[in-house]
């Protein structure tokens, strides 16, 4: 016998410790069970796309840092890739390799953040600090390279801003050597924990068809068992030269998405190692005119960012400023399924599901 009780609304966010920023979900609850969830994004909207229209092509690069600020290098990459395609620029070999190295480092940093904050969402704050401790080493490397930890603006149209500084490669090698051990440590603390598994297994299940219908990408799609990674399926840059695996999940639940990220870090380390081994000498910047004026036309490119497929669409009217820039932000599109996933679960599961989708509000609200 179930007693019918009145439902009530709970406003989760925009100021809430675990919405990963200023995200708001209006929950209609029956006791602790979610009847309806209404996501309300937009609190961090800065109009990056509109701002880009009033900047020259090079000046747009720093704005892309602020999209997914946890995977800043990859955001740079997505944008410059589009402009290079528009202008038909051939990027030199060394720059290509450096791009892969910093891009994959960025992916590891982003996944470390996702894993740590997910542990925090589930209630184990210690995991959060462990991953932060190690993410710091990547940020130190970025600081060495660019002078900045988060807002790197390292990519340039036709190459990268600077060559690898002295002492960068030994530090990176040391980090790569430590990373498998660190991953084992996280596995021991977080992944293997009974309570963590009880909280995440079979929670927020996304079947493969639904994942495709919702246009999910990145670890969220691969967690459902769909083998789709742009680096393998439509290799951009020099990704066709590297040997790595694409980790897949089985059930499409929160746990699988989490484990996918965990495994991807190890694969990224493999790619970096191969890139370091094959790193050629040579220029880091293609011959590009001082004032960048792409021919009239449009270009759309996609890269595999840490959150999924990051697309960039650039329209040129022949002037030195883009006529229109549009970003396909994976976090925003991955968020589409949240309302459906949450129904029937408890408040604690809403946090677990939201955390497992791994959103960054800078990217969601653009």
């Amino acid at each position: 016998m179930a007693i019918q009780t009145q439902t009530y609304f709970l406003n989760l966010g925009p100021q809430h410790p675990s919405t990963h920023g200023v995200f708001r979900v209006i929950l209609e609850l029956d006791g602790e069970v979610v009847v309806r969830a209404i996501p309300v994004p937009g609190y961090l909207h800065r109009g990056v796309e509109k701002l880009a229209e009033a900047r020259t092509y090079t000046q747009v690069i720093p704005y892309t840092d602020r999209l997914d600020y946890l995977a800043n290098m990859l955001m740079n990459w997505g944008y410059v890739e589009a402009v290079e395609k528009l202008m038909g620029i051939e990027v030199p070999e060394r720059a290509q390799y450096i791009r892969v190295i910093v891009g994959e480092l960025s992916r590891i940093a982003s996944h470390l953040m996702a894993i740590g904050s997910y542990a925090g969402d589930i209630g184990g704050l210690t995991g959060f600090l462990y991953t932060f401790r190690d993410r710091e080493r990547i940020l130190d490397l970025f600081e060495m390279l660019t002078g900045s930890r988060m807002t790197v603006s390292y990519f340039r149209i036709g190459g990268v801003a600077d060559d690898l500084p002295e002492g960068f490669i030994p530090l990176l090698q040391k980090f790569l050597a430590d990373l498998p051990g660190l991953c084992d440590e996280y596995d021991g603390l977080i992944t293997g924990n009974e309570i963590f598994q009880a909280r995440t297994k079979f929670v927020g299940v996304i079947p493969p068809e639904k994942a495709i219908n919702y246009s999910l990408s990145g670890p969220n799609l691969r967690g459902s068992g769909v083998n789709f990674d742009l680096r393998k399926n439509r290799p951009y840059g020099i990704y066709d030269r590297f040997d790595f695996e694409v980790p897949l999940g089985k059930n499409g639940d929160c746990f699988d998405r989490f484990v996918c990220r965990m495994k991807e870090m190890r694969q990224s380390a493999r790619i970096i190692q191969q890139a370091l081994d094959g790193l050629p000498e040579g220029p880091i910047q293609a011959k590009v005119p001082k004032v960048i004026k792409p021919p009239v036309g449009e270009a759309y490119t996609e890269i595999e960012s840490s959150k999924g497929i990051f697309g960039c669409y650039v329209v040129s009217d022949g002037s030195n400023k883009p006529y229109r820039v549009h970003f396909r932000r994976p976090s925003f599109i991955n968020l589409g399924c949240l309302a459906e996933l949450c129904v029937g679960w408890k408040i604690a599961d809403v946090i677990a599901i939201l955390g497992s989708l791994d959103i960054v509000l800078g990217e969601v609200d653009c």
Partner: protein
Amino acid sequence: MGENIFLNIASWIRGLLDSIGVPLLASDIIMMIVKASAIIVFISLNVIWLVLMERKISAYIQCRIGPNRVGPKGTLQTVADVIKLMTKEFLIPRSADKVIYLLAPLVVFAPPTLAFAVVPWGDGMAAIDMGIGVFYLIAVTSLSTIIFWMGAWGSGNKYSLVGGMRVVAQMVSYELPLVLALLGVIMITGTLNMSEIVEAQKNVWFIFTQPLAFLIYFIAGVSEANRTPFDLVEAESEIIAGPYTEYSGMGYAMFMLTEYASVLVISIMCTIMFLGGWLAPFGWTFLPSWFWFFLKVYVMIFLFMWIRWTYPRIRVDQLMGFGWKVLVPLSLANIFVTGIGMYVYRSIGW
């Protein structure tokens, strides 16, 4: 060394009162007040120390240093924090039920304080050596459920309300295995007096004869003290701070300090019921009984903290399922086995 230091102080005060001609009844009352205030001061200091200890331990577990600026090695950090909280404004939300909202932080410290009255801190060192000590302690500590619910309801906040509902559900369902686990010990000793229970462990501690009961009591105790993995009441990643969400300043501090006081109560109960109270292990009586008592209590508290900073939090339905489907049947089975064991022992004439 100092075995009877506290007893000596007590008898010295009584002697002093007698010598200046205070009537017996008045000196009794004065002794009562002295004991009560000593306990309250002791708990307050202990709780302040526990907050610092938790911050230091969590820091070391999380590869940090922890507070190290205020006082030598950061020892005065909590004092500074409490002073800061005292000087902060005490906000009353517009939608709050004012009387209940203000009353909750005032009375919240009472249940753990009352509990300490019957605790034997050392050999013959209970403020009140009550015949039904265990029963009294359980009865008094279960009062705090109502006070948390008062705070939750009075706040007029939905997060607080959700937290309050969790408090009632969790505390009421974990009280049962908590009490049933203690029954095994009580069956063996046949007494509810804490001093006698400790005396009964002269030969072997009950953790060895009642390991299952100890485990159940420990798990239920973690839940009673609202600590990870059972800290659903104040699950900060879900419902901000549960019943304390709206409290600020000293009101918030009272709730926080109470949490540590209840950790102290649970650890003390573990020590008395299962770890032999003030009894020295291996006959090492060269250290005073109260020293052993506190050593055991602090080992238990360290265990609590270690668990808190290692495990994530379980979900509310898993919590209830675990309580009713695992802990309660197990504790009933423990009572059954203990009963059979006692019957067998008696019939073979031990």
